[in-house]
């Protein structure tokens, strides 16, 4: 039992970094307000999570990027935040705990130490848009909310396929290549299987072997919120799957697990 809990907590930590925080990449790209918040920030933060995601969050030239921290390869971070465990990191994300700044104490306090710090404001606003389709001030942002939830789902897929107890079975079995996940003419992400691992690119696939295409934002929204299922959408033509279907079979098995980690 404890092993299962540990696996779920660890998976949640990877989802939190690459999907929950990682979606900032698209938020600042798609939303003018968010873009302005980071316009003058050049900062890299190493979330150093023991037995969890060693993630580097980079703010540079108005863009945000969440990647794996690779010692000696990644740019030297200005801030290093230590979490003693994946559970501790999950508490940080849930605003129930603070990480230990091992480097850049003052910058940390300025950037994320208070409710009105840039990082807190950005993530709170993004969460509100994704969860409720509204900004914190109540302005409707349903379309942006669905797009962000879509990117978040795609990023979570890769992490669940790499780390979750059952998701790993499908992830390991999946053939090499790219899967294009699209909301037709609106948004596209790519799941890549290579070198035994899944990764996600929040952009259109270059050379996809398989396609999963939602016909509209509405369909994508309902599917992400578990209001409809993929198999029924196929029958109604709201969802198109084509190409090397075994990759999509495995992806669907992981997709079934995603809602558990994006609650």
């Amino acid at each position, binding site marked *: 039992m404890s092993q299962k809990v540990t696996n779920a907590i660890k998976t949640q930590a990877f989802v939190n970094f690459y999907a929950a925080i990682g979606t900032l990449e698209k938020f600042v790209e798609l939303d003018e307000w968010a873009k302005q918040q980071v316009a003058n920030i050049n900062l890299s933060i190493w979330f150093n999570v023991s037995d969890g995601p060693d993630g580097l969050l980079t703010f540079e030239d108005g863009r945000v990027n969440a990647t794996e921290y690779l010692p000696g390869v990644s740019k030297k971070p200005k801030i290093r935040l230590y979490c003693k465990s994946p559970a501790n990191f999950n508490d940080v994300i849930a605003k129930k705990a603070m990480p230990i700044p091992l480097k850049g104490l003052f910058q940390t306090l300025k950037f994320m130490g208070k409710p009105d710090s840039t990082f807190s404001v950005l993530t709170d606003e993004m969460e509100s848009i994704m969860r409720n389709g509204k900004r914190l001030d109540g302005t409707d942002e349903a379309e942006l909310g669905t797009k962000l939830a879509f990117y978040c789902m795609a990023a979570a897929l890769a992490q669940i396929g790499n780390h979750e107890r059952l998701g790993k079975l499908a992830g390991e079995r999946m053939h090499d290549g790219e899967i294009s996940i699209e909301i037709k003419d609106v948004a596209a992400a790519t799941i890549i299987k290579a070198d035994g691992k899944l990764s996600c690119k929040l952009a259109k696939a270059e050379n996809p072997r398989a396609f999963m295409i939602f016909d509209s934002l509405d369909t994508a929204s309902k599917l992400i919120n578990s209001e409809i299922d993929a*198999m*029924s959408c*196929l*029958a109604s033509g709201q969802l198109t799957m084509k190409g090397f279907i075994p990759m999509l079979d495995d992806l669907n*098995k992981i997709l079934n697990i995603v809602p558990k980690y994006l609650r």
Partner: protein
Amino acid sequence: MNELYTYKKNQEVMKRASKVIPCGVYGHLGPAEGCMIPTSAYPFFVTKAKGSEMWDADGNRFIDYMCGYGPNVSGYCDPEIDEAARKQMDIGNCTTLPNTIMVDFAELLTDTVKKDWAFFAKNGGDVTQLAIMTARAYTGKKKIIFVNGYYHGVAPWTQKPDSPGVLPEDCRNSIYVDFNNIEQLKQVINDQKEKIACFIATPYMHGNFRDNVLPAEGYWNEVRKLCTENGIVLIIDDIRAGFRLNLQGSDAHYGFEADLICFCKAIANGYNISALCGKDFIKSALSSIMYTGSYWMSAVPFAAGIANINKLKRSDACNYFKTLGLRLTDGLKKIAESKNVNLSVSGEPAMFYLLIKDDKSLLLHQEWIAGCVRRGAFLTNHHNHFINLSLTPELVDETLEICDDAMQDMVKNHPEVYSNK
């Protein structure tokens, strides 16, 4: 060029279906598991079928190479078989005690497939499940050897541990080996001999998304020998291939003898019945198992089964399937060659498998098959096809014209692939 079919009424019925039936049409007959890509190229419902043809909800006519995914072996609505079924229906079907016709059918079936006994159920999964239980009851062991890429139904033990609704524990006794790999099988048996109850496999690999693979020379005799020497029950899942390669069963076709063999699809030309047949030595193990179902001894399918098997025997059916399968696949190969399309034809001619191999995504293949369907040849993307007794050379030739036309269109749409070939 033939006019392309449209499916307005099919789609209307699917909308109704989706409200009251999960997935609209679930399982292998549905758009998801049936790999209907794109779904807009396919019908979802038929209104009638006869011989080798079917008509969908919009009235479109198809030459059908899926044969209900196997059961249609003598032709849809075959007058002789349907008449036998009707006669039985008039005198009793699902009764308190089984009708004597059950014994008539058991005698005919065991004589046909050269086994000692037959146990009847309804679906393929009923008898693959029973085969495993019988092997475990007989050996007192629990592990099952599967061949990678297998399909033996939808019970939890046949699925992967990450399939929805399946527990990892359901698959804990599964061992996986590659087809045609005797050394690997020897190793597995050597490592776990004391725990292995059975080896279950189809007679050849007729799986999806890859070329179908026939047994290598001597493979089955070697498997037979290993099973006998190590007290492992050899189970052949002949649900798909049974009565299409050899009326004695596919073990006879490939020159060996299974301990247990599972039949279903083609046994009664669409009347619902399945059978587990086996050797005497294991009969008492099965007798000890409580295994039954509400409709398993209904008489109508027995009557249909007798008429069907007699018709197949009289018609030298398996040779006919092979002849027409070759007529079709040789024709398809010529068409593909003429257009520089790399079409792979694999498996047995009676159950041919098609795959265009000019792109890793299979999109070209899916486009070609969709074109065939929209012109009236019902093929499927990633499953083997079936020949039945009512198919005629004329229908095969008509199919070839359709496939040629659809392939021409596909090639024309992809100069980036075919202009320099």
